[in-house]
């Protein structure tokens, strides 16, 4: 993309940031929900570990498990902040896809830019404060070490790539709205699938072998589990590089699918009518 072209998408990022700030209170609402579900998870795992004969389950101690869950939950709020699903879904539902074609910009990139704006505002409003707080509390209470600056940078890069993957998947799933016309049901299925398979609820080492083998060939692990594992320094340098390559691979594949499917959708809209 040429730099002057890039500028117009930046305008949407800015708009996304403003949007995110406009809805800051709803963000706090989500936060409250997250805290409650974290508490539930805490007691659940406490019970599991109490009744376990060994101190570590699947290579993780109770403290490590708690650290994983908290970080995963906070990271989820950031990586899943993408709004492409809602924008394209609403545009399809209200018949605005056609109108959006009047503007001389690429619809897919526009949505990614808007989403990225929300990503930035979520970082500032929720992610950075919560992440810092979690790091400090976990360090003081259960002695989880605070990683160095290098690990932080790797994590940020990884979560950024993860965000693009989530956004592309959101876009693809949002397109299904043209057949179903029901966004809410679609959202619930999507969210549960994402939460479960991405490692947002529990790490994939807890899954049966056949499932974790299948997951190796799907983009979900790249969304939450890999970034968190990088942050918790549980991956070797080799594994870190390969996780980045996998993420880039998925971004390319999903980006290609987004363009392909949106072109078909466009054709349908243009010949049948929005």
């Amino acid at each position: 993309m040429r730099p002057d072209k890039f500028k117009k998408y930046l305008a949407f990022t800015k708009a996304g940031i403003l949007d995110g700030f406009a809805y800051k209170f709803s963000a706090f609402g989500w936060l409250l929900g997250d805290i409650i579900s974290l508490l539930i998870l805490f007691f659940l795992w406490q019970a599991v570990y109490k009744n376990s004969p060994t101190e570590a389950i699947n290579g993780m101690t109770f403290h490590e498990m708690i650290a994983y869950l908290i970080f995963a939950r906070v990271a989820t709020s950031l990586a899943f902040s993408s709004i492409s699903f809602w924008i394209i879904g609403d545009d399809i539902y209200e018949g605005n896809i056609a109108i959006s074609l009047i503007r001389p910009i690429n619809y897919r990139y526009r949505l990614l830019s808007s989403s990225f704006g929300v990503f930035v505002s979520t970082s500032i409003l929720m992610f950075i404060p919560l992440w810092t707080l979690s790091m400090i509390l976990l360090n003081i209470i259960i002695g989880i070490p605070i990683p160095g600056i290098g690990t932080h940078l790797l994590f940020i890069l990884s979560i950024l790539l993860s965000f693009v993957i989530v956004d592309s998947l959101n876009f693809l799933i949002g397109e299904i709205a043209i057949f179903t016309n029901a966004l809410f049901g679609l959202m619930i299925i999507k969210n549960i699938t994402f939460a479960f398979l991405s490692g947002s609820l529990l790490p994939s080492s807890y899954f049966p072998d056949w499932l974790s083998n299948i997951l190796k060939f799907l983009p979900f692990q790249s969304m939450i589990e890999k970034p968190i594992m990088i942050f918790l320094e549980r991956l070797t340098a080799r594994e870190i590089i390969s996780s980045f390559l996998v993420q880039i691979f998925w971004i390319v594949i999903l980006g290609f699918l987004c363009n392909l499917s949106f072109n078909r959708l466009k054709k349908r809209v243009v010949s049948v009518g929005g």
Partner: protein
Amino acid sequence: MAIIEVKSVKKVFKKPVRKPGIIGMFKTLFSLKYDLIEAVKNISFSLEPGEIVGYIGANGAGKSTTIKMMCGILTPTEGEIRVEGYQPYHPKQRRHVLNKIGVVFGQRTQLWWDLPLIESLIILKQIYDVSNQDYKERFDFLNKVLDLEPFLSQPVRTLSLGQRMRADLAASLIHNPKVLFLDEPTIGLDVLVKDRMIKAIKEINKTYETTIILTTHNMDDITDLCHRIIILDEGSILYDGSINHIKKKFGDIRHIRFFSSQEIDLQLLKTKIGHDVDVEIQNGYIELSFDIEKISINQVLKTILNDYVVDDIHIKENSLESIVKKIYETRQI
């Protein structure tokens, strides 16, 4: 050279045949039967730069479909449309057209719902690559004619309908398009806002020589703005020409309404004036309609004023509205 050329354009929609009820719904899901609906049948016309054209027709006549084809949202089934020499619906040629057109759909906004108006305008500036200088000049102009200042920093969702329409019009013009499509821009607006919109549209056309295509059901807007009208019925063009011409075609009709406390014999009145006059009673008023080329106003008024006690009287010329109503009813010119 014509700025827009529409050559024997046809648009057919495929609609799945729906059966009523829940069982019908399931049947629809698996049936491959389609109804073919001809929304537009063989339309041709061309527009010169700087023209304002009223595009009118009853609901479902195919106005919006044509507009959508002209701005590239729909592809014609047959025929071709060229805007500035390019096909707006062609994937490769589209981008040449998009920078040159502006669209206002009265029924839906194209602004970003949650953003202050000024932000939306800045985004549009970026999208269309408008230089700072041009932006400033146009913004000042639009601010002047549409009075945007009072609500510039409000989110679009909090604007009143009148404000939103002005905002939408401004947003469609920030890149100085050569062609402006206005699809019912005055729908639901109060008289004052409507006047302001009409004035603004005139100003825009005069200052920037923008070609404007206007669809509306409000004939006053058309009379105020357009010299030329295109009347559409069931997907075909019924009339394409000046407003004056169509008025002449329908005759220079005058309507005289008067109120009299006297008992009046309508039959007698009619014979006194002549047989080419239409007489009817509406709400106690007697209404006479006649062609002034056949019967002189002088004679009619004399008859009325000499023979009856007149408490109240109005004279009206044949409005575009009544002509259009007649055309919609009779489906012919």
